[in-house]
């Protein structure tokens, strides 16, 4: 195994760890809300048992909060499951739309996350034969850079396009004042290189594109 392979493996592990840390933090927040809502229901029940008046709306709010957070928890676990399984195969057919939506969801857990508007593709985007785990890493790193460029109060737009000669182009626009020449970082370049993907940076329009190669062209 050479140095480049070792660096790539380290990057893969670091990315896996980062996402799982972020998911665990999200799940803890969900459990904290459920815990407090259940605790409040308990307090209100004790109040009622002593003959004090209890606002039924408050009971409804508590129970609805618990229901909503359980659903949010299930969604998070589903995302965690899909992400974990993306490391199963070094190369497979990947739906770029699903991949992008998953990473938008996972990146949204970050405290630096801003609003993300996803423009659905206007035409069918073909499947891409690539390493799904590393494609996710590329998208994630780009999103994190985008968040830091606009700040948590800002908003970015992400869209997906089918390109002649390339399977898919992921387009990030509405980026802020952070100089785009700082991107991609070395890590992102290394991951892009491993799946033959390319970054295209437009400083004038403040956009970043990730070109993801066609099925036949991808390396595995």
């Amino acid at each position: 195994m050479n140095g480049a392979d070792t660096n790539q493996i380290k990057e893969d592990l670091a990315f896996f760890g980062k996402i799982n840390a972020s998911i665990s933090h999200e799940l803890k927040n969900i459990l904290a809300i459920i815990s407090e809502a259940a605790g409040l229901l308990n307090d209100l029940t004790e109040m009622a048992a002593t003959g004090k008046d209890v606002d039924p709306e408050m009971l409804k709010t508590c129970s609805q909060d618990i229901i909503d957070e359980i659903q949010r928890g299930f969604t998070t676990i589903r995302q965690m499951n899909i992400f974990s399984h993306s490391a199963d195969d070094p190369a497979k057919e990947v739906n770029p739309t699903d991949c992008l939506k998953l990473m938008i969801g996972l990146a949204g857990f970050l405290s630096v996350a801003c609003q993300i508007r996803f423009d659905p593709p206007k035409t069918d985007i073909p499947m891409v034969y690539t390493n799904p785990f590393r494609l996710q890493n590329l998208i994630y790193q780009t999103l994190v850079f985008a968040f830091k460029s606009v700040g948590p109060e800002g908003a970015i737009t992400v869209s997906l396009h089918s390109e002649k000669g390339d399977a898919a182009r992921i387009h990030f626009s509405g980026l802020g004042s952070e100089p785009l020449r700082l991107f991609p970082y070395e890590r992102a370049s290394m991951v892009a290189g491993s799946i033959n993907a390319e970054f295209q940076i437009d400083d004038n329009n403040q956009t970043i594109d990730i070109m993801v190669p066609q099925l036949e062209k991808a390396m595995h």
Partner: protein
Amino acid sequence: MSNAYKIKLLLVDDEVKFLQSIAKRLELKDFEVTTATTGEAAIACAEKGLFDVAVVDFQMPGMDGAQVLKTLKEKHKYLEILMLTGHATVDSAVECTKLGAFQYLEKPYEFEKLVEVITAAYQERLNKKFEHNQKRMDEIQKLSFGSSPLGLLRALSRLDNEEK
């Protein structure tokens, strides 16, 4: 109805549902609660109202918990601050301690434990204010010996300015 003093709390967390539930539970325990969902809003609240204890989430978008802690301690030296986090690390605990946090709790926590820590923080606030007032009384006593009324007023004004 009891005339007992209600400890004034400022709760700061970007998770609105969590904030609302915990605020209500604390109100049922006879705390007077104000909530804020951002660091900036918390600092603005603290400027307008006098709080005994603040409970601040460590990880928030924009101005994070550590920055809120630092700013609040600079502007309100007797405000005791508890930090809440979903992910406790040695580094963040050390950072909070250095910035003057009273204590650091990891979510999810036992509610009764939170109440106990808030009460202890309030007691700490009272102790510090008492010590300060005691020192001030001693200073005033020293100043009053042999001073004219105008001289005493000037000295007191100097003392007030030093404390700001």
